[in-house]
């Protein structure tokens, strides 16, 4: 079963500007949260804080109910229970296989056990034939899949994804969304993902938070978050806006998945 995350009175200041001010965010064990919001809203910053990579200037993160104290040894143990897919994934200068195996190696998982797991995830993500390639020999979408594989192979308690599907072709993206939700729900993994695509919300998320200027301005079920939550079309309904919303069929998918 996954573990819960909770952020309380988090403040992050970068270059004298407060880029994140989250009063409260509670992600219950096994829940999947989507984070959406305009560019520069602080979504990636929030994800860094929750993945225990960036210590907030103020506030407390609770991991599995206990406050995180940011001491080096303990933080490493906590980090080993989570996996992160970054907005700009950086692959290491070695083969795809080694890149995917790296997190397992850090955890002391080697040999056939590691080989089996890596192979499994390379196959699920359709990149098994690229195992011996170097990062610069991959297409953008293939590299993106490697970054997904290297996180999912860890089979973590908590999964944090920052725009994980941006470079993927739409049919693959749809298939992966459904597959990922099935996987997360099957294992009770707690997850949080950042996206710019409202279509992804009902396919993957249980709950959604809208982040604007570093603050959570709205939370709710995916269907309750309108496409025009911010920006020039703010408050308009789907019929008036140039972007049709809601998309037909999306609701039923959401209800089917529940």
């Amino acid at each position: 079963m996954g573990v819960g995350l909770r952020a309380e009175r988090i403040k992050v200041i970068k270059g004298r500007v407060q880029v994140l001010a989250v009063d409260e965010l509670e992600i219950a064990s096994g829940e999947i949260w989507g984070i959406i919001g305009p560019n520069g809203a602080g979504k990636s910053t929030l994800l860094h804080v929750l993945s225990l990579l960036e210590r907030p200037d103020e506030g407390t993160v609770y991991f599995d109910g206990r406050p995180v104290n940011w001491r080096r040894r303990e933080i490493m143990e906590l980090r080993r229970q989570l996996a992160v897919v970054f907005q700009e994934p950086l692959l290491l200068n070695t083969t795809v296989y080694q890149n995917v195996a790296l997190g397992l190696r850090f955890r002391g998982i080697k040999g056939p056990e590691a080989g089996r797991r890596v192979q499994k995830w390379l196959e699920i993500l359709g990149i098994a034939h690229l195992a011996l390639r170097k990062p610069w020999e991959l297409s953008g979408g293939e590299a993106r899949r490697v970054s997904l594989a290297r996180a999912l192979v860890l089979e973590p308690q908590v999964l944090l994804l920052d725009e994980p599907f941006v470079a993927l072709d739409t049919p693959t993206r749809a298939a992966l969304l459904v597959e990922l939700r099935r996987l997360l729900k099957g294992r009770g993994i707690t997850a949080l993902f950042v996206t710019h695509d409202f279509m992804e919300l009902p396919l993957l998320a249980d709950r959604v938070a809208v982040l604007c200027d570093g603050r959570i301005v709205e939370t709710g079920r995916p269907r309750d978050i309108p496409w025009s939550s911010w920006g020039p079309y703010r408050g308009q309904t789907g019929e008036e806006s140039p972007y049709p919303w809601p998309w037909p069929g999306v609701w039923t998918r959401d209800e089917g998945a529940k």
Partner: protein
Amino acid sequence: MRAVGATWEGLVRGIELLVRLDPGVLEVVWLTLRVCGQSTFFSVLVGVPLGAFLAFRRFLGRGLVISVVNTLMGIPPTVAGLWVSFLLWRSGPLGRLELIYTPTAIVIAQVVIAVPLVTGLSMAAFQQLPPKLPAQVLALGASPAQLFWTLLKEARLGLLAAVIAGFGGVVSEVGASMMVGGNILHHTRVLTTAIVMEVGRGNFAMAWALSFILLGLTFTVTAVLTVLQQGRRRYGGWP
């Protein structure tokens, strides 16, 4: 004409000395390799972690420390030799260790020469890595040691350049070896000090011979490091 003749004679003599495994020359070659190998090793041991520290940590006075390191990268070996001999002289603060005019003294002086080179170039090598890389490696669950090792492998091209520069710096210097080693036969005579001595004595052919041996030695060691550096790198090439 005489110079050309000496060069040619020197080249032939050098090959001859090596082929015959002349014990006197082999002794000097071996000591050179040992001393320079040790000083390079210790410089890397100190310089690479120091370079990583300067590259990744922010602290008060960091800019000053980096400036000092960069200045010392160009330290004249004679100056390093002078400092170290002050320390090691019988009457000096470390005089009781009785290290002056020993191979160890040469190693110490050469470490002083090479540490800034290795530190400065390692720092640059680490700073060339993407700034967000350490966080992503930590996110994969790396311990501090695993993070360091991973970054080391990522920066290996630049780091091997640092090692090559460090070795080049110590194998080519003569001022420090002379000052703290004293060019004592069977004890502290290395190739560079031997060359200076032979020139002083007017044995140009021998000096040339030794210079070719030194070049050959440097080339061999550097070639091994270069193979390590360039070895498995296989880019498509310039388009």
